[in-house]
């Protein structure tokens, strides 16, 4: 599965992580993304919302995309101008047959395993926008956006430190 389509806003900073789909890595993934986003000086609520959304997407890749196997998960973070954060969670697992259905609240393919079926609903509630692209047998890309409220502190410096943006 390749990532989602490129976006035309100016990129100020980016990061990329690759992890095996082990559930111990859920905590690492969300904390790493939180640390990346911290340069924008977000509120505690904003950080927690992003961490929760990342945790949902990574858990989906571990539980559903790879099921009993271990595969790779790529997590990409980008900071765009105007403090817009983009997080992509990409896997190369089994893919989702019907994305619209999978996004419905309470929908789960594993009701007997205590799956709440609320993963996508939580991502949609806590982020501003969630896009899902998936191909059966190839994998899934979840791309999420959130605008961080600008506050007067070092967060402003990031925009000045990359005056022309960076090529990515």
């Amino acid at each position: 599965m390749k990532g989602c389509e490129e976006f035309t806003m100016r990129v100020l900073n980016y990061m990329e992580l690759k992890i095996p789909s082990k559930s111990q890595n859920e905590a690492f993934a969300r904390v790493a993304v939180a640390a990346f986003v911290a340069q924008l000086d977000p509120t505690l609520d904003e950080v927690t919302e992003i961490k929760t959304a990342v945790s949902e997407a990574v858990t989906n890749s571990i539980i559903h995309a790879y099921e009993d196997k271990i595969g790779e998960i790529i997590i990409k973070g980008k900071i765009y101008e105007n403090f817009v954060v983009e997080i992509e969670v990409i896997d190369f697992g089994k893919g989702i047959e019907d994305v619209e259905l999978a996004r419905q609240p309470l929908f789960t393919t594993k009701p007997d395993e205590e799956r709440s079926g609320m993963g996508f609903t939580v991502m949609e509630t806590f982020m501003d926008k969630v896009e899902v692209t998936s191909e059966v047998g190839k994998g899934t890309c979840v791309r999420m956006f959130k605008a961080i409220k600008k506050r007067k502190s070092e967060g402003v410096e990031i925009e000045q430190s990359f005056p022309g943006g960076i090529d990515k």
Partner: protein
Amino acid sequence: MDFEAIMMEGTLILKMKGELDQYNADRYRLRFDMKIVSPEVQKVVIDISELTFMDSSGVGFLVGRFKTARAFAKELVLVCSSSYINRLLSTCGIEKLIKKYTTIDEALS
């Protein structure tokens, strides 16, 4: 994640601390169920106020423990004073299923 179990006159209080995600849900499911089904327990109070993180896998975990208690005809209620976790719980519609209180005292009365 870690938890503390307190027994008080037939009521089992389970205080959870740390992060409740899919990884920890898998690790603690059986341990919680063993305590809940124990014959001296009539009522279960799960206090999640001190969780520093929870996602929908944590919600699934709580619903699972509620179902265990219900299968043994025991009452299970939640205590939560964290605004972030309360928001997650209401997003997932858990309040329709499990009674929720803000303090342990309220849950015990």
